[in-house]
Structure formats: C-alpha cells, structure tokens
C-alpha cells in the first residue's frame, strides 16, 4: 500500500526549486525572444503599420513549423544545439534551450493576438497625431496591451512548467525527472503522487498571481 516514508522530501524540495529555475529562466528568454517576434508579426501583417507580406509569411511559417514539432521530439532534435549553446544537454541548463525554442513561437503568437485585440481606432488616432511607428508601439500599443500580455505570460509560464517536467524524459532536472526516475522507473507511486501534487499547487499559484496582475493593470 501507500508508504509515504519512500518519499525523500529533500529531493522533492530540490526538484521543485529546479523546476522553478527552469521555468523562470526559460520564461525570461521566451519573453525576450517572443515579444519582439510577436510585435513584428503584428506590425507586418496585412493593413498594419509596417505591412510586409513577405516578412510576415516567412515569420509565420517558421513559427508554425516550430509549433507543430511535438515538444518531446524537439527535446531530442535540439540535443546537439543545446550542447553547443550551454555545454550540456542534461540537467537544468540543458533543458532551457529546448524550452525556449519550444515556447517562444507560441508566446509570439499570443502576443500577436493580444495586439490585434487593440481597437484599430486607437492606432489610427496615434497616427493622426503624427506619432512614429516606434512611438506607437512603445507609447501606445504595449501599454494598452499590458493586461493581455500579462495574461499571455501567465499561460506561457504554465506551459513552460509542464514542458520543463517533460524534459525529465531526456535527463532534464526538476520534478519531471524525479517523477520519471522514482515514480515511474522504480514504481514508487508515492513520489509520482507528490510531484504531481506539487505541480498542481505551482500551476494554481502561477494562475492566481497572473490573474491578480492582469486585474491590477486593467483599465477597462
């Protein structure tokens, strides 16, 4: 039957920290890459400020290709690249490059959609005032879209957390690794239950604080 003494709580704590580090670091790089990419997607789309059909189509294609690769496959395919970038494909560091490449395109699409939700009239008013494109982006679009962008970051953080756990399959660190090595391979169901429970709590917390932040910046 269930024997909680099999659970090494120090390991669980360590794994939780690793998961948080992987999620946090990859979230940082995902936003760093995905936000400008999303803005560029938005601006180059049809009838937008920098409408550039060619640029839009190429960006869109790359994003779609990356998004259609199952994350587990991406993890494996990325191993040589990861080795080049961080020197190892294992552990916390080894998980970050595939996490970023896996979620940045997803986040870019979310950003594009959030920006599209802004009333065209507002952009037009800025143009009518004589604002330059960069002024419209930084002075109007991003502040207007802030609540939506924060919601997109929250969704992305949760996706990253679940992907980070998946990276345990190829030797990434964190709760996923713990669940696979002990919970799955050693049949210690207790460890599996605990890791899943910790993940549930973390996701709840992320969503809660994400929602609070969104609400705080909503002016509608």
């Amino acid at each position: 039957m269930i024997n909680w003494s099999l659970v090494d709580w120090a390991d669980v704590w360590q794994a939780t920290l690793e998961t948080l580090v992987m999620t946090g670091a990859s979230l940082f790089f995902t936003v760093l890459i995905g936000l400008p990419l999303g803005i560029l997607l938005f601006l180059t789309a049809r009838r937008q400020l920098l409408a550039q059909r060619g640029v839009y189509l190429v960006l869109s294609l790359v994003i779609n290709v990356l998004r259609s690769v199952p994350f587990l496959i991406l993890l494996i395919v990325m191993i040589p690249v990861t080795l080049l970038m961080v020197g190892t494909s294992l552990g916390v560091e080894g998980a970050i490059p595939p996490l970023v490449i896996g979620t940045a395109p997803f986040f870019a699409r979310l950003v594009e959609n959030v920006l599209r939700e802004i009333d065209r009239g507002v952009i037009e008013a800025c143009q009518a005032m004589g604002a330059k494109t960069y002024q419209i982006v930084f002075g109007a679009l991003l502040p207007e879209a802030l609540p939506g962008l924060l919601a997109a970051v929250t969704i992305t953080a949760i996706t990253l957390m679940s992907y980070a756990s998946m990276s345990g399959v190829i030797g990434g660190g964190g709760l996923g690794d713990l669940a696979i090595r002990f919970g799955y391979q050693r049949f210690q169901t207790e460890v599996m239950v605990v890791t899943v429970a910790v993940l549930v709590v973390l996701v709840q917390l992320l969503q809660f604080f994400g929602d609070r932040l969104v609400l705080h910046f909503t002016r509608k």
Partner: protein
Amino acid sequence: MRSRAILVLLDWPSSYSCSRPVIRIEHLHKTYQVANRDITALTDINLQIEAGEVFGIIGRSGAGKSTLIRTLNLLERPSSGSIFIEGEDITQFDSAGLHKLRQRVGMIFQHFNLLNAKTVAANIDWPLKITGKYTPAQRQERVIELLALVGLGEHHDKYPSQLSGGQKQRVGIARALANYPHLLLCDEATSALDPETTQSILRLLLDINRKLGLTIVLITHEMQIIRTICDRVAVIDDARIVETGKVADVFLHPQHAVTQRLVAESHIFDNEAGLQVANFRGKLVRLTFVGDITYQPILSHIAAATQALITILQGTISRIKDTPYGQLLVELNGSEEDLRRVFAHFDQYQIRHEVLP
C-alpha cells in the same frame, strides 16, 4: 478656470484667422481594391476651405465622406489628385513631413479613440510628448490649460473608462488641440453621443473655432449638425460632391435631389403634404426670409400697403448657425392688382417667393 482659458488664447499663434484657403483639394480620386475589384470612394473632388471657417461635409454612409476627411491628414492615401494645406501639397510629403503635418492637424473621432491605459492628463500629454519639443514642465502646464479649455479640470487623473461619452470627446478635443493645430478634423465626432451631449460638444467646437480662429472640417450624416455650426457645406453622394455652398443657401434652396432628401429628412421644415391645397381658393406662396428681415414686420407692412389678405398657413422661424431665417407658407387673397403689388414688395424686400401649384 476662466483665467486659464484666456491664457490659452494668448499662447495661441496669431498667424491665422485671415481669410485665405487653408485647404485646396484638386481632382482628388480614390479607388480601393477589394477582392480584385475596384471600388471608387472618391471621384474628382474639388474643394476649397477657407481659414477660420467651419466646413461641413454631409452624406449618407458609404458616400465617401469618411474617406474624404481621412485624406486630409493622409490616413487615407488618394489614388490621384492634390491636397494643398497652407500652400503645400501634402500628397508629396515624405514620412518626416507627414509626421510634422499630422502634428499640426488635430483630429477627433466618433469613438473617441482614447488610450485606455493612460489617464486623462497622460492622453492629452501624449501628442505633446511625441513631438519632443517641450520640457515636462511645459507639457504639464499645457495639459492643465487644455483641460480648463474643455472644462475637465477636475478629471486630470481619471482613466477614460471613468468618464461619460461627452467627457471622453472633450478629452479627444483637448488632445487634438494640444499641438496648436491650425486645422481640426472631426470624423462623425458626435454620432455616438446623445442629443444633449451632442449640443454641448458642438457648442464647444464653435467656441474653439471663434476664440482660436481654428478651421474646422467635419463630416456627418445629420443636417441638424451642419445647421448648428457650419458656415459652408458640401454634399457628397456616390463618391462625388454634388452641391457646395453657404449653409443657409443649401439648406433653404437645395438644388440636388440628395440634398433635398437630406433636408426633408431633417424635419426642420414642416411637412406641407398635410395641407389640403384644394381647400384654399387664394394663391399659395412659399416665402423664404434670410437674415435680419426675418425679425421685421414685413407681412404687416405689405398687408397695410396693398389691401391684400395674407393668411399664414404654416411657418418656421429659426436660425442656421447665426443667420436667422424664416420659411412661411401663405395664402394670398385680393385683386390682380393687389397681388401684383404684393409680389413687387416681396422683390423689394428680397424675400424669395415661390408660387405653389
């Protein structure tokens, strides 16, 4: 509050208000491509708008009025033709020139288009900020002046969502005036407002036009708005301008069928169809007075001088902007000679008369 408003006036460059065309539009065409089909939005538009006037463009939805006003700051690029603003052909401007032009031309919108994430003050500050010409202190002072001008002094730190529609449009007006424009474009600025708020916004626009000598171009589908604040009007229908002139002229003597319908729909003049013309044995005449004679006892003079009997059947005495006008439907009874003398008096007083069949 009042002293603040005066301050604004002193600040304003005094270079305008003389009568010279601010806008000259020549042979303007615009065609869109929608699903590989050409759609004509504007056909050979020629217009001249003088400095300091309130110029209205009226038409039904889809007539092209929205496209026309949006070409004036190149939110819409014309397919061909020229638009001269203060002597410069804006269709030839490069992007730097265009940004400068747009900073000099204010625009307000039907749905206000305020930035929801910024406070009222920050919304008005934003056009000042993007010019890069003012220090934060100068900008702050200007924002306070503008808020006073539109009567929103106490709403400085509110967000647009906390304001009523009329207040939002006032913020829109303050924002549009921030960079001392010579020209204000109003794109259906009151169409989303209730009648009372519409009147207050129109009064504000008229006030600004008078105090600052600002030229205003507005588009609308309501004759009532044209009548309230415009000096001249252009009627646009099916991508063409079909009639242009002083509001009183166009209003009282509409020439084109579209104009006649617009005037009829505005219900300013009572519907004469209700009259049973056959019941009257005398001559039915429609009289139109424009200007000061509207308020003079002319019919009494004529009646006394000619012995003719004048019966007023229907009538309207009102104003078009500042011009008083009257339109009366009268029945004349008397001898041939009396009637001839009555008409001679009408001509002498310059009263337009039209004998109804």
